[in-house]
C-alpha cells in the first residue's frame, strides 16, 4: 500500500516538474498504440471477468456437465459453436474459459470455446462482411475455418493433451454470501488479467512500430510466402478480432486467401493472447498450445481459402 502511494506521489511530482520534452516519433506512436490497445480491451476484459466471476459464484458445477454431451469428441464442436454467444474480442474469452474449466468443463471443450469465441461471434462476422463487400465467401470462410481450427485443437488436446500441462485456476474466495465471492473473484481476476493485458499491449506496440512497412510488399506476390507472412503478421499485430477485417481489407497487395489466413490466425493466436494465456493457464501450457494453434489455424485458413475464394 505504501509502495502504491509512493508511486502515485512520484507521478504527480513528475507531472509538474517535467518540462515538455520531444521524444522520437516512433516511441510516441508506440505509447499511443499501447494505451489505445489497453483502453479498447478493458471494457471487454471487464465484461469477460464479470461473466467469469458470475459463473464461479452462481452456477453450480453440475450445470455444465448436464448441458454438454458425455462423449468428449462430440462436446468439442458443441463448445466451439457455443462461442457464437460471447460478443467481443479475445480479451473476454480467456477469463470466461478459465471459469468454465473451474466448473468442470472438460479442457478439450473449454479450449475449443476459447479459440472459437472471438472469431465466430456475430459482431466479428458482420464486421467482416462490411469490410469485404462483394466477397461473402470471406465471411463463410472465416466462420468455417475458425470453428474448424478450434475443433481440431480441441480434438488434438483429447489425443495429446496432458492434465499437468494445463493449470486450472482455482477459485480464490470462499464465503457464504455469494455476492462477496463474486466481488472477490472480479477484483482478483481483473487485476491479474489486466496486468497480462498490459504485457500483451506493450509487445504489440513494440512490434507494431518496429516491423518495416515495406518488408511486406516484397513477399505479396508469392503464393506461399504471402500466406506465411500474413499469418505471422496477424500473430504479431494482435489487432482486435472486431477490427482485423478492416486492416486486412486495406492490404490489397495480398491475395484473398492470404488475407483469410490473417483473419483466421489473428483471433486464435497472437502476442496479446499468448501473454494472457500464459498468465492464466501457465507458461508450460502456452508455449505448446500457441505454436500448435498457429500451425493449425494457418493451415485451415489456407485450405479453406484456396477452396472457397
Amino acid at each position, binding site marked *: 500500500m505504501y509502495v*502504491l502511494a509512493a*508511486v502515485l506521489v512520484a*507521478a504527480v511530482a513528475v*507531472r509538474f516538474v*517535467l518540462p515538455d520534452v520531444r521524444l522520437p*516519433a*516512433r516511441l510516441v*506512436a508506440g*505509447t*499511443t*498504440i*499501447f*494505451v*489505445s*490497445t489497453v*483502453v*479498447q480491451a*478493458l*471494457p471487454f476484459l*471487464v465484461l469477460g471477468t*464479470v461473466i467469469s466471476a458470475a459463473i464461479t459464484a452462481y452456477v453450480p458445477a453440475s450445470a455444465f456437465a448436464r448441458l454438454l454431451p458425455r462423449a468428449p469428441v462430440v462436446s468439442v464442436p458443441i463448445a466451439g459453436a457455443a462461442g457464437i454467444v460471447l460478443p467481443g*474480442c479475445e480479451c473476454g474469452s480467456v477469463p470466461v474459459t478459465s471459469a468454465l474449466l473451474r466448473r468442470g468443463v472438460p479442457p478439450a471443450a473449454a479450449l475449443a470455446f476459447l479459440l472459437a469465441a472471438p472469431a465466430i461471434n456475430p459482431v466479428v462476422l458482420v*464486421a467482416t462482411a*462490411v469490410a469485404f*463487400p462483394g466477397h461473402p465467401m470471406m465471411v463463410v470462410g472465416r466462420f468455417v475455418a475458425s470453428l474448424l481450427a478450434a475443433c481440431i485443437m480441441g480434438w488434438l488436446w483429447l489425443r495429446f493433451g496432458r492434465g499437468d500441462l494445463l493449470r486450472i485456476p482455482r477459485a*480464490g*474466495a*470462499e*464465503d*457464504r454470501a455469494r455476492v*462477496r465471492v463474486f*466481488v*472477490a*473473484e*472480479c*477484483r*482478483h481476476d*481483473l*487485476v*491479474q488479467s*489486466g*496486468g497480462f493485458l*498490459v*504485457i500483451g499491449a506493450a509487445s504489440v506496440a513494440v512490434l507494431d*512500430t518496429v516491423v518495416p*512497412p515495406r518488408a511486406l*510488399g516484397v513477399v505479396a506476390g508469392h503464393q506461399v510466402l504471402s500466406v506465411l507472412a500474413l499469418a505471422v503478421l496477424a500473430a504479431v499485430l*494482435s*489487432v*482486435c478480432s*472486431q*477490427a*482485423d477485417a*478492416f*486492416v486486412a*481489407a*486495406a*492490404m*490489397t497487395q495480398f491475395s484473398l486467401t492470404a488475407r483469410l489466413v490473417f483473419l483466421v490466425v489473428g483471433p486464435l493466436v497472437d502476442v496479446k493472447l499468448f501473454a494472457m494465456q500464459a*498468465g492464466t493457464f501457465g507458461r508450460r501450457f502456452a508455449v505448446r498450445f500457441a505454436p500448435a494453434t498457429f500451425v493449425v489455424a494457418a493451415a485451415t485458413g489456407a485450405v479453406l481459402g484456396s477452396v472457397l475464394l
Partner: protein
Amino acid sequence: MRRHVEAVLLLLVGGTLIKLVATGGYLRYVRPAMAPLLVCSGVVLIAVGAGSFARIRRDHAHGGPVGWLLLVPILLILVAPPPTVDTFGAARSGTAVSRPTGRFAPLPSTDPAPLTLTDYAARALYGHGSTLRTRRVLLTGFVTRGAPGQEYLTRMVITCCAADARPVKVRMAGRIPADLAADAWLSVIGRYDSHTDADPLNTNRIPYLDVLSYRRVAAPSQPYE
C-alpha cells in the same frame, strides 16, 4: 498482492476510464461509440474496488506482482497522455478506401460541400467522380508528403482503436500548400480532379483534388474518421 492494493488499483483504472470520457481524451485512442462501454466498465471497476473493502471470510487469492503493471498505462494517461497516431501511422501503411456497398447519398447542399476524406475518395474512385463533378468540396485532414512535390491531405480511419488506424490519402493538385509543415491540419476547398496515383505501399489508388484554397486549422477534437 494485498487485497487493498488490488482494490485501489481498480479504483484508479476505473477513475481513469471515466476521466478519459469526461475530458474527451478517449477520442485519441478509440471510437466515439466506445464512450458508453468505457463509462460502464469504469463504474464496474469502481464498484468492485469499493466493494472489496467489505469483509470476506476466506480470501486466499495470491496472485503475482503482475497486477502492478496496470499502473503503467494509467500513469501514462494521467501524466503524459500519448497523442494521436497521425503522421507516423500515415507513413507506414497504404491508403485504405473500401468499395461502398450502396449508392452514394446526394452531396450536402451547402457550398462548399463538407465531406469526409473517406467519402470523397470513395466517390472519386468508385463513382468516377460522377457525384462530385461540378461541386466545390470542403475536406479536413493533415498534410503528408510522398516523393518530392507530392503533397497529400490525409486522415486516419479507425475501427476499434488507434492500433488498427490506417490512412486515407487524397493527392493535392492545383494551389498546393508547399510551405506547410507535414502534419499541419488543413481545411481545403477544392474540385474533383480525375487523375489518380498508385500508393507505393499497397498499390491502392489515390484520388486527386484540385485545390482552390486552403487554411490552417487546429486539430479536430475527433481526429479519426
